């Protein structure tokens, strides 16, 4: 699991030294990590040098989408300038080169998440499409009335609504694992919900709204014990720490390219080969077939069976460049750096008496949600924007999470490895300013 463990006792704002303790086993791990050359990294992201309202941009909305480093921008530009062609169906040189570059990204994705085979990597538009694909192919053919699907309270709407649609179609029922007041996942409650009726467990690995990390390896093992199939939404994980789908042993794993420094419009569905092979196609069209007559159509092999139509070719090649970039920095190094930054940000925000953190789970990725007494998150977002600080305000596509914590919305700062303590200081200053405006 990721090297990002620290503990925070709720409601205790003094004596921060004692509040934050690093899990001993993780300490070793963290000291193994190489420090990042953040100045150099920042220079790789052209957008970070722009200003907003005359102030240097402080970009803290990385959970929504990340900025793109030069190698990713260059990869996309290279496609347009020197190889652009449609893939898999041309004999000419450009098509051959573009196909090779596209397929290389598939290999890179397989290695990134340690899939057994490239054919287990299906390119989709994003996490949302990956989940819908599984719901409408695997789900439609395997679930019947009375079956149950388990999700957590913290899910993004993308991992709720496709299952609700499936429930309507099949008569299956959705069950929800609660979280405690710190937004820790309640594994014992999860165990109580599991039964032979459970057919699908669909859960995020890390919460985009609150940062909580769910112990997905254990979740998967317990689901398999009752014969259920497991989908893990890694949208907020693959960019933060090493992920090994075979160690998790999940049946499906989804994520979006745009949240991991790649272009938008491309994402990944990983599925175990036997499962993917047993599933009907999602969409029909070109590329997903071997042969078509009006009498009979033979579907293509994996993974092409699930890739109907011309995909986001340049985006997928950009995804390969993003993966190479991340691996160059090292995902363990990224995890250690971001854990430090999260710790710093949590300490600094906790010093502001008017700020209340929402989501103080033991294990988190670098996402901090908060509310400020008497000030609506949208007003915070607007004042912060004026100071050049970009955060997200609203329900973060996780309305059930907001309902659980009795807030209409939160302000959320989501950090990544190009952010610095100086960014956090600017965030804190801007929050102080907001409090003054509305005092």
């Amino acid at each position, binding site marked *: 699991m990721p090297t990002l463990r620290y503990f925070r006792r709720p409601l205790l704002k003094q004596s921060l030294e004692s509040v934050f303790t690093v899990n001993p086993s993780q300490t070793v791990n963290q000291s193994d990590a190489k420090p990042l050359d953040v100045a150099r990294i920042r220079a790789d992201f052209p957008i970070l040098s722009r200003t907003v*309202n*005359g102030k240097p941009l402080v970009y803290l909305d990385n959970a929504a989408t990340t900025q793109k480093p030069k190698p990713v921008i260059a990869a996309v530009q290279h496609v347009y300038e020197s190889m652009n062609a449609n893939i898999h169906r041309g004999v000419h040189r450009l098509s051959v080169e573009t196909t090779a570059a596209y397929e290389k990204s598939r290999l890179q994705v397989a290695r990134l998440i340690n899939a057994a085979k490239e054919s287990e990597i299906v390119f989709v538009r994003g996490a949302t499409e990956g989940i819908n694909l599984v719901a409408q192919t695997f789900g439609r053919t395997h679930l019947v009335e009375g079956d149950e699907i388990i999700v957590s309270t913290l899910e993004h709407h993308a991992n709720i609504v496709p299952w609700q649609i499936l429930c309507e179609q099949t008569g299956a029922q959705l069950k929800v694992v609660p979280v405690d007041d710190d937004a820790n996942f309640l594994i014992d409650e999860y165990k109580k919900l599991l039964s032979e009726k459970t057919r699908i467990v669909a859960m995020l690995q890390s919460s985009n709204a609150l940062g909580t990390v769910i112990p997905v390896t254990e979740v998967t093992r317990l689901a398999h014990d009752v014969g259920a199939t497991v989908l893990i939404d890694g949208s907020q994980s693959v960019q933060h720490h090493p992920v090994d789908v075979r160690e998790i042993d999940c049946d499906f794993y989804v994520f979006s390219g745009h949240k991991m420094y790649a272009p938008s419009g491309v994402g990944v569905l990983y599925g175990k080969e036997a499962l993917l092979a047993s599933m009907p196609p999602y969409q029909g069209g070109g590329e997903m077939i071997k042969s078509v007559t009006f009498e009979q159509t033979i579907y293509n092999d994996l993974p092409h069976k699930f890739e109907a139509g011309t995909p986001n070719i340049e985006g997928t090649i950009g995804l390969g460049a993003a993966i190479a970039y991340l691996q160059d920095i090292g995902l363990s190094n990224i995890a250690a750096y971001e854990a430090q930054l999260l710790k710093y940000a949590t300490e600094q925000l906790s010093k502001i008496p008017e700020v209340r953190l929402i989501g103080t789970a033991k294990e988190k990725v670098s996402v901090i949600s908060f509310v400020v007494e008497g*000030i*609506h*998150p*949208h*007003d915070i977002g*607007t*004042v912060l924007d*004026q100071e050049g600080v970009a955060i997200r*305000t*609203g*329900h973060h596509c996780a*309305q059930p999470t*907001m309902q659980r914590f009795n807030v*209409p*919305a939160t302000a959320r700062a989501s950090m990544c490895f190009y952010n610095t303590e100086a960014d956090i200081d600017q965030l804190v200053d801007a929050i102080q300013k907001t409090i003054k*405006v*509305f005092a």
Partner: protein
Amino acid sequence: MSELSDLYQELILDHNRSPRNRGKVEDADGSAQGYNPLCGDQISVSLKMDGDRIEAVKFEGSGCAISTASASLMTEALKGKTRVEATELFEKFHRLLTEDGSGVKLGPGMGKLAVFSGVCQYPARVKCATLAWHTVKAAIENEEGQVTTE
């Protein structure tokens, strides 16, 4: 570059801190709920008519400073207006927010609403300012149910 104080003018901050006409009017002739899916703001508006004239408007709900102040100032602006006058005022108000509203004449006694002219510099916030108005429009037309800003 727009200044923050153009958006959060003192009058807006004041109406956000102490909103006027909060609550429900008794024996309402019309009411409606408004919802802004973007920020989760929810508002309910109830009104009492005296013939064609609005006798009283009240609102409840939670929202950002812009939506709260807009609802509060709206309840003051609409008191005594006819249905037609109310609709016209909303149209003008909307123009104030979405176009360069400096030329829009709001009419006598409506000057206070001009404090929202800064909103047009913040397109993401226009819906906050119009939520209460959309909702009151539904209440006047006595449509029960929910309106959204989408």
